């Protein structure tokens, strides 16, 4: 019996070890299928049916229908390619899913990814440079040159290679309740942040709070509140990060930006909330203005529901000018895809970023087109006529700020969000930012 139990124990131990080893190997499975930089351009010709999977977050409203229309049109034009969409509710679940799929050796062909995610993916060798996709090397440069300058730069990681491809980009804009502007005697929307603060204070009465922001947290990821702080700081002359991702949260410009928010809160002109609180307040006629992504245009309209006219404007200027932050995740291609899938993926990326689809997508969703060629497409004409602010702001895509593409920037964004919460809760702006600076510096040193 003894020997029998020993044998059983040995078998059990072996089983555990095997499962552990399998799990460990499964985690790295996707990396075994490495990039094929030598894949010839000939492989770009799709000779047999191929299915590519695309993990994305366009789960509702016009975003969902517009993407489905794009896929239908693409499949019609490329009958041998099938695009299998997998939709997630938001970017948090998307990252979790992409990570889990890569770890399980079943990564999607294409996935949306922020710059900091892409850097982590690339350093983990689970995505491939765009130029390595079959057929891309000969046409990528031409396609790239059609994009706005800021968009082009946003596609590169610190090694200088293009690892991402654009689909949708947005800038932050201000959505005003035009009736409240009129009632407060504000005849023109503010050109400076100083004037903006004065208008918010003047409008904050009778249950109305000038602006409501979401400072953000780990659950929500990047929010408009945190982006606003970055824009204020940059318009004061110092962005929150240097180009190599070094935080400069304690610089006078950033501290001044934080104090700006704190003063608004003290004056009762700023409230905080979660889950797009500014949009809710605006729609309920309890807010003068909402600072949000241009891609939120249709959601703002839905929230307002025709109760009052909506006035959309660009951001005011700070002491050194006007600075906007470009948002919108890019697309990456995972290394585990087959050569055929990579070839099909490149065709799909080209289609999505081309002027025809960009015009249709922008008109349907409120995102900015990534190429100026889209502006002259017929499907864009009526949209631009109805929304003249798009034409007047789109060139900001050439010089808008964007968070540097380093993995630690995700942690630093949460640190900044925490600093905003702390400062708005009574901690001094400099102390809150000092804590964030320390945490971010540690994150940077840990890589």
């Amino acid at each position, binding site marked *: 019996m003894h020997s029998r139990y020993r044998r059983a124990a040995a078998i059990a131990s072996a089983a555990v070890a095997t499962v552990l080893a399998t799990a460990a190997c499964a985690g*790295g499975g996707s990396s075994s299928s490495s990039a094929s930089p030598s894949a010839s351009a000939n492989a770009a010709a799709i000779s047999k049916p191929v299915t590519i999977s695309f993990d994305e977050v366009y789960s509702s409203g016009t975003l969902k229908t517009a993407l489905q229309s794009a896929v239908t049109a693409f499949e019609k034009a490329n009958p041998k390619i099938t695009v299998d969409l997998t939709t997630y509710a938001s970017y*948090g679940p998307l990252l979790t899913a992409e990570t889990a799929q890569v770890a399980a050796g079943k990564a999607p062909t294409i996935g949306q990814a922020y710059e900091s995610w892409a850097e982590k993916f690339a350093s983990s060798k689970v995505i491939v440079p765009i130029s390595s996709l079959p057929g891309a090397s000969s046409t990528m440069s031409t396609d790239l040159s059609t994009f706005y300058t800021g968009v082009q730069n946003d596609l590169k990681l610190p090694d200088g290679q293009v690892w991402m491809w654009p689909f949708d980009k947005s800038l932050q804009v201000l959505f005003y309740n035009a009736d409240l502007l009129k009632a407060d005697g504000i005849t023109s929307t503010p050109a400076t942040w100083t004037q903006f603060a004065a208008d918010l204070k003047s409008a904050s009465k009778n249950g109305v*709070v000038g602006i409501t922001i979401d400072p953000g*947290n780990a*659950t929500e990821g990047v929010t408009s509140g945190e982006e606003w702080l970055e824009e204020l700081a940059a318009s004061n002359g110092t962005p929150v990060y240097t180009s190599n991702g070094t935080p400069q949260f304690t610089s006078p410009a950033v501290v001044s930006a934080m104090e700006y928010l704190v003063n608004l809160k003290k004056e009762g002109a700023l409230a905080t909330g979660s*889950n797009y609180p500014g949009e809710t307040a605006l729609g309920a006629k309890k807010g003068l203005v909402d600072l949000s992504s241009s891609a939120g245009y249709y959601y703002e309209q839905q929230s307002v529901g025709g109760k009052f006219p909506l006035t959309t404007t660009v951001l005011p200027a700070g002491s050194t000018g006007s600075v906007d932050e470009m948002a919108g995740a890019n697309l990456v291609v995972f290394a585990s895809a087959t050569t055929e899938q990579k070839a099909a993926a490149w065709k799909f990326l080209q289609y999505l970023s081309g002027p025809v689809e960009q015009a249709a997508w922008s008109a349907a969703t409120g995102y900015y087109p990534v190429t100026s060629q889209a502006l002259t497409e017929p499907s864009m004409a009526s949209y631009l006529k109805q929304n003249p602010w798009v034409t007047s702001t789109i060139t900001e895509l050439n010089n808008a700020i964007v968070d540097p593409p380093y993995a630690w920037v995700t942690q630093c964004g*949460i640190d900044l969000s*925490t600093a905003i919460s702390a400062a708005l809760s009574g901690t001094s702006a400099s102390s809150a930012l000092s804590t964030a600076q320390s945490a971010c510096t540690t994150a940077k040193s840990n890589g």
Partner: protein
Amino acid sequence: MIGTTTGAAGSARAQQGGGSKRARRAGRSRTRDFRYTKKGWLYSGPAVLIFGAFVIIPTFYTFYMSLWNWNVLNPSLSVYKGLGNYRELLTASDPGFLQTLWNSLYFTGAMVIAGTAISLCLALLLQRGGTTMNASRVAIYLPNATPLIATSLIWAWIYNPQFGLANWVLHSLHLPTSPWVEGQATSMPAVILFSLWHEVGFTTIIFLGGLTIINDEYSEAARVDGAGPWQEFWHIIWPQLRPVTSFVVVITTILSLQSFTQFYQLSGGGPNNATTTLSYLVYEESQVLQNTGYAAALAVVLFLITVFFSLVRWRTTPDIGITS
């Protein structure tokens, strides 16, 4: 037949061990115990396999990962750190480990003290019976039967400082309003209030069960001797409920330490990390920041704390009903 075979095996083992009385008793005991037969192993096999695959192996794997700077995307790029992740627990900031531990203990303490007191009071009230009380039993238990994530979403709106029901009620009563989950000082109490609403139904049912098995003769004797309601509760009922109370305290402690959903949905760990508990930090580090090794170290610490309280329960809680 099976029993005989196992019995023979048991006897053989007893002889191998020197033929002690204890070994022989063990052999006879196994003859009668179905769990030690081949069929017993066969029947329990699926459950053991599932438990092993989803609990035991992941637990050991977590211990293993906590010793590495783990690259979840490509484990071959992981770097061995030894106890480095555990050392970082003590030096981390924004949020610090000690702050999140304190938040966990704050939440757990409030849930144990308030939850136990409220559910005991409700159980004593419901025990009186009657149509209203019987209907109330369902009403009190109902929140616990609803999905935590769904009710968290609803309470997020109730707590909305600008448009929420809670502030509307306070305002209507001419009372000062609250920022609820948006305020650094009020966020944890707000999460606790919601959690109590959701959880006391469960512990109330446990106390009700305990009240049904206590011996009424002591209470009757006390009343005959002139004891008042409070004296009867304090000296007669409460001591008899000790094992139930102990169970409620320990199970509430363990569940509270592991609470996550309400922190994720209601407060997102904020503001300013005021509601970042150990469980939430494990999520943040593993899922958002992908610091898998560090998150594993946090999970191990949380596991050890939970094991500690489980052992406390094991050592201090007699079987319910023994004392009656």
